[in-house]
């Protein structure tokens, strides 16, 4: 009797499981039969597989945050295009604007637009469209989960935007902006067909752009679907349809890829370094590593003992074996950072990465002697969930506590970012690991806010950094109209940062994405202009 009951229960559980698994369809795992021809696919060697099948990706956030977002969709989806994009070296490059020039004092910028471009609804792209987009920008600022759209920060002192002919637009600014084209890169100059704007500047329905794909479906918080724009003015995409699912949890995203529910993981933090290392040995998957504008910094309280002493800051920097941190905790995904500015910036000036633990320990001994020193090491919770900060902090803790002849104790404390920032601002901390991205291709705001005595991040992070020469350089940069001189100033600021340590750069992040070998052409390219046009079924 008992044996029969056990068998019955087990059978019922299996039957229920099997029955439920057949309750719904899965477009990705049960593709429709091969049918029809694909004009774009027919021209490419990769096109033999049926490219009308939907390719699914997973990301931690909405790739189409919707009508209230400044851009509706991530740029990488290829729904819209900007006037100005960037080259691999980070310098501005033509997109919908073919070329541009400015007058001597950089107050008047003339943009020559690409001709023959049409929107996905067939409307032509011309100067009137650009004027309408500037009119819309004036109704902002607009909120975005990518980059906020604020005309005052992208086009500071904009006086007018006028057309001189159907394909020429002139921007006039109150003060010279020699690096305006840097701030316009990608999200700074997104162009949409004005009929998709609501009266308040948000979107009234799906966005209409000039890109190779169009939004076909969007369920906020769940997924969005984009479809190839066959009338695209440039090289069209290969795959016909992509679905981008929202899966916030890293482990679940990874499981979805392994289960074949999605063919790729995309966007920031797509996959953890440990998961990527696991997939690298598996021929069923591909891992792609690309550039990232994110730098991991060890921020220190330079306004209080012991980090108010340059020897302590330099000593700790020399003590850090950055390559070991990258290899051990980030599975090799990262680059040792010597300077303040990310290597992806067009203004990056390489700084030596120095590792000399003996000299580092000697400098710290000179700074603190043998007196008892208690250091508070803050870790923001959100970052601990995304990066191996706990392990990294414990490594730094071990380095500091084991310096011979000193008596340093390090206490690690995890906090939410809000209260963590409050503690930093009040100077109630000694060290804090935190990332910093590149808010714009023009790095002026980064230098000003981190390195100027009155810089907002310098104050809010309690860095306590002060250097009269740095202040003078930043004030000169603020009014400088010569792009070459600006480049020199930025290079000098980077050299100073590598010797004076307003904070300690640890590593430059790298974007890691993964895909199933069922698709091809997917590369880590955050916010790149090509987006998904090269991604297609491989089999």
């Amino acid at each position: 009797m008992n044996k029969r009951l056990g068998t019955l229960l087990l059978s019922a559980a299996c039957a229920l499981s099997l029955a439920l698994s057949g309750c719904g369809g899965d477009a990705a795992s049960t593709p429709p039969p091969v049918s029809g021809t694909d004009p774009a696919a027919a021209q490419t060697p990769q096109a033999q597989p049926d490219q009308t099948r939907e390719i699914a990706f997973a990301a931690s956030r909405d790739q189409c945050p919707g009508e209230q977002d400044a851009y509706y969709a991530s740029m990488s989806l290829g729904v819209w295009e900007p006037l100005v994009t960037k080259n691999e070296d980070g310098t501005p490059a033509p997109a919908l604007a073919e070329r541009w020039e400015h007058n001597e004092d950089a107050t008047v910028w003339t943009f020559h637009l690409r001709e023959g471009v049409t929107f996905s609804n067939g409307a032509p792209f011309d100067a009137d469209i650009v004027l309408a987009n500037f009119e819309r920008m004036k109704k902002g600022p607009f909120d975005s989960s990518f980059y906020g759209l604020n005309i005052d920060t992208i086009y500071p002192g904009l006086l007018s935007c006028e057309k001189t002919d159907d394909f020429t637009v002139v921007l006039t600014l109150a003060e010279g902006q020699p690096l305006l084209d840097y701030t316009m890169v990608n999200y700074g100059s997104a162009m949409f067909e004005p009929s998709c704007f609501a009266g308040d500047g948000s979107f009234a329905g799906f966005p209409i752009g000039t890109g190779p794909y169009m939004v076909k479906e969007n369920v906020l918080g769940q997924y969005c679907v984009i479809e190839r724009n066959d009338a695209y003015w440039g090289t069209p995409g290969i795959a016909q349809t992509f679905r981008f699912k929202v899966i916030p949890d890293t482990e679940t995203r990874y499981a979805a890829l392994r289960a074949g529910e999605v063919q790729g993981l995309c966007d920031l933090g797509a996959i953890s370094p440990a998961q990527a290392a696991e997939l690298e040995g598996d021929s069923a998957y591909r891992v792609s590593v690309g550039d990232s504008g994110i730098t991991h910094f060890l921020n220190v309280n330079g306004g209080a003992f012991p980090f108010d002493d340059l020897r302590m800051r330099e000593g700790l920097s020399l003590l850090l074996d950055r390559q070991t941190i990258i290899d051990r905790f980030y599975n090799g995904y990262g680059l040792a950072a010597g300077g303040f500015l990310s290597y992806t910036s067009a203004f990056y000036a390489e700084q030596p990465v120095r590792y000399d633990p003996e000299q580092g320990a000697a400098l710290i001994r000179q700074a603190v002697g043998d007196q008892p020193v208690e250091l508070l090491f803050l870790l923001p919770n959100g970052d601990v969930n995304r990066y191996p900060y706990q392990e990294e902090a414990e490594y730094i803790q071990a380095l500091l506590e084991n310096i011979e002849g000193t008596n340093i104790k390090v206490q690690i404390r995890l906090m939410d970012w809000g209260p963590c920032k409050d503690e930093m601002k009040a100077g109630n901390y000694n060290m804090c690991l935190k990332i910093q991205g590149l808010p714009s291709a023009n790095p002026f705001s980064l230098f000003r806010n981190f390195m100027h005595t009155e810089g907002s991040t310098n104050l809010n992070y309690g860095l306590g950094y002060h250097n009269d020469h740095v202040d003078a350089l930043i004030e000169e940069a603020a009014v400088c109209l010569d792009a070459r001189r600006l480049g020199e100033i930025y290079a000098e600021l980077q050299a100073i940062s590598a010797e004076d340590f307003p904070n300690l750069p640890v590593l430059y992040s790298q974007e890691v994405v993964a895909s199933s070998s069922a698709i091809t052409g997917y590369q880590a390219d955050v916010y790149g202009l090509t987006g998904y046009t090269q991604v297609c079924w491989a089999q």
Partner: protein
Amino acid sequence: MAILTYTGRRLLMLIPVLLGISLAAFLLGRIAPGDPVDEALFRIGVEFPTEEDRAEMRAQLGLDRPLPAQYLDWVGRALRGDLGRSYVGNRDIARELMTRLPITLEVSLAALAAAVVFGVGGGVLMAAFHGTWVDTVLKALSTLLLSVPGFWLALFLITVFAEQLHLLPTSGLDRGLASLVLPAVALSAANVGSTSRFTRGNILAQLGEQYIVAANAKGLSQKAVMLGHAFRNSLVPIITLIGNYFGGILGGSTIIENIFAIPGLGSYVLSAIQNRDYPVIQGYVLVTGATFVLITLAIDLLYLAVNPKIRIQGGES
């Protein structure tokens, strides 16, 4: 008539309870550390705000006004069904919550159903096979379910049933009923464990009562004694327990929704907490609090159906 009076009185009592919930929701948002102003500025392209930027945004968000004025203004609008717009994304909170509430309720009710079916069913089985290997195995299983954290179980279930066996989806809601299985199991596991043990204990206690001896003496079958007498009389405390679980399930759905990528209230409030999006947090506490209070009322009314004593006394018991 007495039942109607009882129900009316309970409904009137909801007013101060809901006011208390609204005050708690409002104050929780305000005393939580962190400042929503920086996040709001960041999202409109001001990554390095000055004190002037902050002051301007604070005024724009209405955070520069005295707390009582902010509270009264919020309650007044909430009474008209307007919970304001989120700091992040500028979305209509009431509409967003109403879109997400059915999803969370669907998952929570599935979890509650699992707790009832497997918890009560398991408890009855344990009591029926008291002292046999079935009882021992099910007791061990219920202890295991009680001890395993929900988030761990969720990841374990995903690995086994989605990643390895490909039987169920890892996440989302696009595969109908199949999409609900893993979240419901993960959410209800601990409750299944405790309900089954509680049911078992209650039924065994009832089986020792004199009326059971009398029922047996009358020659009733074992099944009739167990289900018609012992089980029915042990139902009231079990219903109370299950009713109380609902609050836990609603709260627990926050983590589970995040893991299973379910766009319900839980995942919404989790993101709001991370962004210090006060109006969303307030709206969430208000809606889930009100839902919980209404469910509790429904359970209280259910007592009337199952307990004749309460019915006779018009709910005075």
